[in-house]
């Protein structure tokens, strides 16, 4: 096993101010950035705040920015950096900082609550739901989300424009709308809830300019833009901008869903 001393810059501070602090720290073969942050806590900065849980890329807790890129600390191997490189670790820059590498991601929970839940179908009790695999494939891809909020962090709509946080749900929750709209048993339409229309009117789908950063940073490899956001935009077009589809649905010759 070989080891070396790496140079790190870690942001330390709170909402009152802070800055990048330099560290030299031992790195061993096979380690990830979270291991190094833990070594810093153990040897040099015992009060360094960092949020983490599973160390396996499944809990979505250790989201941060490494060399300016939103990533999971536990899934970023030290071997992707050269030994000469200075590695900069900062908290997520789209959310209010609490302390050191910990941010307040409450914005995301607010947005989650704004998305109406799955609407159970009439005449089916719990345990009677039956779905074929091809009907749930699309929704299942979106269910892989670990809610690390890296996509929310990197999305320039809110990252660069704080004022848009009111109107825009962000890629994670637009994906949730898409997941429910594609769900074979969701009875939102029957209950009078048009998810396609609310995606645009209430969750800010139109703010998305499909520049795909959410897809680039997703640690689960979910094709957020191609499989959720663009299909949702096309569904909104069905409702709001395609007179043929609108007319067809009015005279009952074409259903909107199938």
């Amino acid at each position, binding site marked *: 096993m070989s080891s070396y001393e790496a140079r790190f810059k870690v*942001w330390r*501070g709170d909402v*009152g*101010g*802070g*800055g*990048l*602090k*330099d560290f030299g720290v031992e790195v061993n073969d096979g380690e990830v950035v979270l291991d190094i942050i833990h070594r810093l806590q153990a040897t040099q900065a015992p009060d360094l705040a960092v949020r983490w849980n599973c160390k396996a890329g499944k809990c979505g807790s250790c989201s941060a*920015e490494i*060399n*300016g*890129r*939103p990533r999971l600390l536990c899934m970023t191997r030290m071997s992707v950096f050269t030994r000469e*490189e200075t590695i*900069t670790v*900062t*908290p997520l*820059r789209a*959310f*209010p*900082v609490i302390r050191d590498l910990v*941010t307040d991601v409450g914005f995301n929970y607010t947005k989650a609550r704004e998305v109406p839940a799955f609407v159970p179908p009439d005449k089916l009790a719990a345990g009677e739901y039956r779905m*074929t695999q*091809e*009907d749930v494939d699309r929704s299942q891809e979106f269910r892989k989300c670990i809610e690390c909020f890296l996509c929310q962090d*990197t999305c*320039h*709509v809110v*990252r*660069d*424009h*704080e*004022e848009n946080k009111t109107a825009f749900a962000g890629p994670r929750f637009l994906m949730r709308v898409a997941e429910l709209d*594609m*769900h*074979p048993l969701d009875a939102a339409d029957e209950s009078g809830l048009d998810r396609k229309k609310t995606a645009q009117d209430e969750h*800010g789908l*139109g*703010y*998305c*300019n*499909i*520049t*795909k*950063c959410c897809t*680039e*940073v997703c640690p689960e490899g979910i094709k957020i833009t*191609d499989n959720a956001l663009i*299909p949702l*935009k*096309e*569904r909104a*077009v069905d409702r*709001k*901008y*395609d007179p043929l589809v609108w007319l067809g649905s009015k005279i009952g010759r074409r259903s*909107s*869903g*199938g």
Partner: protein
Amino acid sequence: MATGTEPHLNSGGVRNGTRAAITAPHLRTDRWWLAPAATAAGLLAFVVYSTWRAFSNSHYYAAPYVSPFYSPCLAENCVPMRNGPNWEIFGSWWGLSPALLVLIFPLGFRLTCYYYRKAYYRGFWASPPACAVAEPHKKYSGETRFPLIFQNIHRYFFYAAVPVAGILTYDTVLAFRNEDYEWGHMGLGTLVFLVNIVLIWAYTASCHSCRHIVGGKLKHFSKHPVRYRAWQLVGRLNARHMQLAWASLVSVALADFYVYLVASGVFDDPTFF
């Protein structure tokens, strides 16, 4: 040592007062600027070339090849093309280049294409220039207002792009003639046209609107097995939409340039048989 220990002034974006006090608009250390710069350069090169060719109104037909920029030719001032796409529905009053009548459709298709939107939003408008790199604009309304709300008409341009691709297919069939209009021949130009039309169709079929129309809009794939298969097929192409967008952009320019070279007498079309 610690640096930048003062909280931000509330200047918005990543420098918002409640966020971590980091002055730099981004901390990326990779060559993040390369992709948008290369994209902008590539698109700019095509815009310059296609503008020159569209307005030049010359050297667009060398029997049996017609430039894809000028097909179909809808004005009376077109060069006569035997059995070719001469449909003079605009009559004699149109005095400008006939290419302008046709290019509006493929131009609109590509301009509103989901891939190209990403490309030019990043490459030209820096919105954002790259992921986690702060954009320079103070306000952002995305595609919620005029004029960008018109990006939602992409599917209409898709509908228009299908017959245009059909006509270019017809032109490719006509390219299996020689310069005396005899069938059963093939030249280097035929090969160029063949490659171009395959890429044009692949790009058109891989479109996100196409994917939605053939099956993506459905809620129950199990009730529509044929459309489900079609959706899967388009989905596989769609995963290569960016590559197909670039390949077809280059191929259509090359097909036009080939016709230009032959029509202007730079060289004769090498015939295979």
